[in-house]
């Protein structure tokens, strides 16, 4: 008798398990590859990004590493010589070091200065004219541009598909060796979007881990009264488009934001650049026309053109500065250099 009951009970339990499992199976997705989730940490005291660029691009270590490899890979360019990293160099906070314009395919120059790449998660519109509306579609611009990487997405994908490593890396990140543009672009976005620069001396002072020198403090005080309106802390940009009084370059005839919006009121407006790592991202402005920080300050104090109709109202009387003010300002701007970021091994060439 006892044995019989045991058998019955055993059969019951077994059946229950089988049945429950059968139901579970139909709910589970097949895509159960083991990825390692990454969390995106917002530095203390920073605002939330305007939009969550990772909302439909779940961050994983594998996705990030794939993006990193792509960023450094010449395969994304026509002749193999122009990976993203050829123009975006880590030691220059991912700007092109000491170049007004960067070199692209076939000895061509870019028509704008390559900005540093960091804190992009807080940047709703990319490029100097804000023409790019999402970090995931940004790489399409340099890849296709004949004066940059000069390659088609078709060819890039074909090269990745026949590569000995990429199919496995895509599999690690997305659960399948299938390679398509969306996966490639999302991986690049994971790499670029998680580049956060938040460990400069300025940040340490904010966190109470360091103190400004007298000169730096004076520069900071001046900055808060005259520059802050556009170069807003803690990102040092308010992400708006403004005309800061540069003459039109007659070679380029670059009218900035107007090219995107068709509005004459946007003529000669460019995105307010972040000033983080500004010591490393020289030369300055959208066309790299100003070589040093000192040149920039001379621009704001004396050289700025006040006759353009779209000149920002904040600059109509320029920003008068004494030599001491300028020295202090340079001292302050140098505190925005983040060597933890420029040396972060996670962002190095893999």
């Amino acid at each position, binding site marked *: *008798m006892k044995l*019989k*009951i045991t058998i*019955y*009970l055993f*059969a*019951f339990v077994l*059946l*229950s398990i089988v*049945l*429950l499992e*059968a*139901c579970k199976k*139909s*709910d589970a997705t097949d895509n159960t590859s083991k990825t390692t989730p990454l969390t995106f940490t917002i530095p203390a005291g920073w605002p939330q990004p305007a939009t969550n*660029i990772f909302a*439909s*691009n779940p961050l994983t270590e594998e996705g990030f590493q794939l993006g990193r490899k792509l960023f450094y890979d010449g395969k994304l360019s026509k002749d193999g010589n122009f990976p993203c990293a050829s123009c975006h160099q880590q030691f220059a906070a991912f700007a092109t070091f000491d170049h007004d314009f960067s070199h692209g395919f076939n000895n061509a120059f870019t028509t704008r200065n390559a900005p540093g790449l960091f804190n992009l998660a807080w940047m709703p519109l990319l490029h100097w004219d804000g*023409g*790019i*509306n*999402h*970090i*995931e*579609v940004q790489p*399409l*611009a340099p890849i*296709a*541009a004949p004066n940059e990487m000069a390659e088609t*997405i*078709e060819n890039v*994908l074909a090269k990745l598909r026949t590569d000995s490593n990429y199919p496995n890396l895509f599999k690690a990140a997305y659960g399948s060796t299938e390679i*398509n*543009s*969306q996966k490639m*672009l*999302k991986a690049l*976005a994971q790499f670029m979007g998680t580049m956060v620069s938040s460990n400069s001396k300025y940040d340490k002072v904010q966190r109470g881990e360091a103190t400004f020198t007298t000169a730096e403090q004076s520069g900071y005080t001046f900055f808060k009264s005259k520059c802050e309106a556009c170069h807003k802390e803690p990102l040092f940009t308010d992400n708006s488009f403004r005309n800061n009084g540069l003459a039109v370059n007659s070679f380029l005839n670059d009218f900035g934001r107007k*090219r*995107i*919006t*068709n509005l004459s009121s946007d003529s000669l407006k460019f995105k307010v650049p972040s000033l983080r790592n500004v010591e490393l991202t020289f030369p300055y402005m959208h066309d790299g026309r100003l070589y040093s920080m000192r040149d920039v300050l001379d621009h704001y104090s004396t050289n700025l053109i006040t006759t353009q109709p779209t000149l920002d109202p904040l600059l109509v009387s320029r920003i008068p500065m004494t030599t001491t003010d300028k020295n202090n300002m340079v001292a302050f701007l140098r505190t925005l250099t983040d060597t933890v970021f420029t040396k972060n091994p996670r962002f190095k060439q893999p």
Partner: protein
Amino acid sequence: MKVLKIILPLLVTLLAFVSCEQNADAPAPLQGTVKVTFSNKVKGTNLVLNTGSYINNTGETYSVKKFKYYISNVSVTNIDKAATEVESYHLIDQSNAASLSFSFTANAETYSHLNFIIGVDSLRNVSGAQTGALDPLNDMFWTWNSGYIMAKLEGTSPASAQVNNKIEYHIGGFSGPNNVLKKINITLPITAQMLNIRANKTSEIFIDADVDKWFSNNISFATEPVCTTPGALAKKIADNYMNMFTVTNVVNN
């Protein structure tokens, strides 16, 4: 013990039902399929890429090399019912016969309207990397000014003074004053019958798209041979092409 012998099998049977209950839907409504087919024409004759020769309203001759447009957010509706296609993005491309028709599931009902957007809704223009019909590989995405080209026509006309007599219309713009998105609602009782969807059957809607309509209101290849940015000309052409569709037939099965 007898009791156990009876109860256990009962329990097992019960479990079989209970455990899968989540998956068992309420009785599914009867469903059929809507198939929509586009035929690209010029003033009633079939559009033939490259070799066909046509004349616009200002008397200029032209031929067409590329003709493609997005149809999105497709639904069929009646006063109190709607069948909306999910992930509804289609690139109708004259050079790709398979692209000229698509199908989706609808409850077995009668529908009086076909609705869609010419172009890609603004949300998908700002949502990053897409795939399928919206893959940037399809050559319908502006890289320098993020956003989809909603409709594209390229060809030649002797009236155009552009290099190799090119004419090129890339119509896009999804926001503010540059918005070229057009919502189309077509009333279906074309041949005195509405769209009737029956269980497990496919009913079809046939639509003609007339290229000629792009150049209504005196668009001239001499003066306006190229449009590759959002703006006034793009809007003018979109206002024109929103009138290019005619439902020619509804076939109920």
